[in-house]
């Protein structure tokens, strides 16, 4: 499968690396070149990284958004993820779009709007609750 991952912070780097190790074709789009240091060297040498802004259509096109199967927006900023994801969904019609939204209120709004919004806040809270119970 072809993946386009926007954001190479901790989550972006980890998910990209995992997908790449599973044999998928992965492109990581990130504004700050330092972010790519989180990726393994052998992955970086395979031209998997692209410096650019996931909210800008030219950069998305350069990153191959027109023929990816999945777009994953995992920038640290919710609003950037929301804009980029909605562009991927409504402008480029990417088959599957997943969007990280930390703010639980916004997450619910975007879920209601049909976006696959996942919340690290929600996930972490559940992990802590489970840890308390066990």
């Amino acid at each position, binding site marked *: 499968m072809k993946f386009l991952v926007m954001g190479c912070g901790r989550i972006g780097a980890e998910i990209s690396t995992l997908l790449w190790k599973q044999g998928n074709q992965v492109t990581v789009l990130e504004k700050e070149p330092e972010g790519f240091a989180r990726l393994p060297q052998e992955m970086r040498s395979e031209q998997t990284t692209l410096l650019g802004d996931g909210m800008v259509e030219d950069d998305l096109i350069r990153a191959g958004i027109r023929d990816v199967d999945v777009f994953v927006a995992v920038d640290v900023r919710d609003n950037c993820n*929301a*804009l980029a994801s*909605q*562009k991927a969904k*409504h*402008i480029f019609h990417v088959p599957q779009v997943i969007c990280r939204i930390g*703010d639980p*209120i*916004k997450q619910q*709004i975007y879920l209601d709007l049909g976006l696959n919004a996942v919340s690290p806040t929600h996930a972490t809270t559940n992990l802590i609750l489970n840890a308390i119970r066990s």
Partner: protein
Amino acid sequence: MYVLIIGGGRIGYHLTRALLYADHEVAVIERDSSRIRVLSSEFGNIAIQGDGSEANILLTAGIERADVLIATTGNDEDNLATCQIAINLFNIPRTIARINNPENEALFDVLGIHVTVSSTQIILSEIEEELPVAIEVELLPARGNRQVIRIEIPQESSAIDQLLFSLPLPPDTIINAIISGNGEFKPIDKDTLIEPFDEIIAITHSDHTETLLELFAGRN
């Protein structure tokens, strides 16, 4: 009407002034404390500090009774998130977003942001920066992708001492009124002469806003 403005930069500031002048109730949400001080000293207690794309801040500003929300920040992603919260969580009847990158207009349209103010606002602010004098300009969106423009003729304008109808006015443009420096309406006819401090009220298509501004405020 109760109008909630997000972003107290140059555009938010001018909008606030125009809306207060027209007797509307206005609140402004702004992140930057120095801008908050400017707004408060000018307009009184109408500014709230915080992130306007957070539901809690919008509630603090009384979004539940707002008739209109206008998102004017320099970040399209923040303007989009704010309008989507306003529409989907608070059922605000009318939201207006400033768009900084024109390519985003299609997305805002698809997502039902009721009105989008196109990038002419940016062109306007760029023109303001390029001009040697601060020009007095206000814009309001109007139907048919048009804008209502109020502009004061600066002393250096190349339009001064020209006949109004000798100027190459852009198409789809109506000059609605001219108010002279002493506050009198000027008759608009073939003899109308443009003078310093004239206040021009016009409606034009958004595509021609820049041309019109340059015509009235540009130097030789």
